[in-house]
């Protein structure tokens, strides 16, 4: 299993590096059209062929990977911060605060994640600039994805709040804020890290689902969701396997996260 984890880390590192260097390695810009060769098969010039608008598919996969792999962790960071705020305050203060925060958490968790996301995303303007659509999509993922983590963090803070070392620290006169900063939060680091890692693949898959339903990142900017949307216009897969490159990459990356995640969960 250790070898598999090392391989997962390597794959993830290579994918991140390749996508970060998209500007260097991509043979063309993601929006550049080669109008004389639409829907062309792989060649020396276009490694994964071109799409129906004549855009180089390899370049689009590289740029799309960059967007998904940079924005999903950013959304995960936002949701983990929100979860820390809500769960931490609820767990630390307890009583009425905890009941109100957990009530809000229940409300968010009572609706299927994709349903909630679909409703809220559809409420945002759909005909916005591509860059804005990236921000809106991932911001929503971050703002709506905190509930599950908040519940876990609330339980974690509650158990720390009642632990002997916190009681002793409080008895020795340590200020509450200082107690929270130097005793409680550092002890929650493994839980926070696990929640952050758990959120990344969830957000990548959610963006892909939204993209295929036409509610994700707008054209011509590529993301895994918008690249997978191309599948709707496919007539066959059998002889055009290169068209599935974004899907294969998505499955490999998300699987790598899952494999690394199991290790993080053990640490948590």
């Amino acid at each position, binding site marked *: 299993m250790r070898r598999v984890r090392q391989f997962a880390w390597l794959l993830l590192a290579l994918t991140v590096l390749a996508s970060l260097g998209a500007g260097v390695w991509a043979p063309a810009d993601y929006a550049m059209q080669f109008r004389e060769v639409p829907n062309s098969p792989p060649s020396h010039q276009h490694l994964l062929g071109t799409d129906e608008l004549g855009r180089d598919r390899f370049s689009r996969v590289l740029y799309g990977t960059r967007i998904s792999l940079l924005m999903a962790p950013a959304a995960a960071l936002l949701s983990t911060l929100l979860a820390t705020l809500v769960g931490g305050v609820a767990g630390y203060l307890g009583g009425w605060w905890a009941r109100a925060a957990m*009530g809000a958490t*229940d*409300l968010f968790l*009572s*609706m*299927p*994640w*994709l*349903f909630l996301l*679909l*409703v*809220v*995303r*559809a*409420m*945002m*303007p759909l005909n916005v600039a591509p860059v804005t659509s990236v921000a809106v999509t991932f911001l929503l993922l971050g703002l709506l994805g905190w509930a599950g983590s908040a519940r876990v963090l609330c339980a974690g803070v509650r158990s720390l709040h009642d632990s002997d070392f916190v009681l002793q620290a409080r008895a020795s006169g340590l200020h509450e804020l200082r107690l929270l900063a130097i005793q409680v939060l550092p002890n929650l680091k493994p839980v926070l890290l696990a929640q952050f890692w758990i959120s990344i*693949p969830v957000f990548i*898959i959610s963006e*892909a*689902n939204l993209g*295929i*339903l036409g*509610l994700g990142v707008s054209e011509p900017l590529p993301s895994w969701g918008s690249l*997978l949307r191309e*599948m*709707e216009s*496919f007539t*066959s*897969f059998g002889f055009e396997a290169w068209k599935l490159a974004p*899907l294969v990459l*998505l*499955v*490999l990356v*998300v*699987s790598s996260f*899952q*494999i690394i995640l199991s290790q993080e969960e053990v640490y948590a």
Partner: protein
Amino acid sequence: MAKIVRHLAAMAAVVLLGGLLSATLVRLAPGFEVDEQQLDARLSSESVQALRQARAGDRNIVRFYLHYLGRAMRGDLGESRTLNRPVRELLSERLPVTVRLAGLGLLAGWLCAVLLAVGATMARRAACDLAATLLGGIFLSMPAAVLALLFVYANAPACLVIALVVFPKVFSYTRNLLARSYESPHLVTAYAKGVGPLRILLWHVLPVTGAQLLAVAGISVSIALGAAIPVEALCGIAGIGQLAWQAALGRDLPLLVNLTVLVTVITLAANWGSEFAGQSFKTSAA
């Protein structure tokens, strides 16, 4: 009894708040008061005014919601703006379709997950465990919408997509639960004494893990309902998932509020139902 009443009261509060939340979100959305029909050059100024009047009733969200609740008590759920049909009629037509789709998917997903988890745990071979984990991992990494598209091309039944979305989550939970259970000292002793694997599973493992598995059943209903949205939208199945997608794209306030309330009721009922079933199972097993 008091516990059930408390649960029902909490459920009603969450459902009402969920409906209000969805209504507020739709109301605050940019361009809510603009109707595509208002842009039609053939309409007279009176017709445009009438369209604006029709939207004006929804401007005050609290008034809209209270009015909606009052009508809902009398069985009137309003009319869909995008489909021009009574919401009650739409829901009664489409709910059975989603229930059948999600029900069959849940059944198939759970069956595969539990059988594979039991097989992988009982085989006690690293290769079997790795193969089962890889299979679960692949489906866990696939967006439901991609699976739906692949099934459209393969002309395969859409309920299998729901099954494949539910399967990896139930499988990984069940496998971990069983693995932990098989490592407990009394089971190691039972093995050492030569008790058969089937007897160990039926008499010692399932009574312990059954309650926890039942608790996950409620969550899997929520997962199946979520997956039903892309599946129905992409496979062209006229269920509530497709209706939710259409309502969201059309910013159909009455339909969205009703769908949110309906989905919240189903999810909460499933969660609490499975929680009660788990507790009853635990009590009877003890």
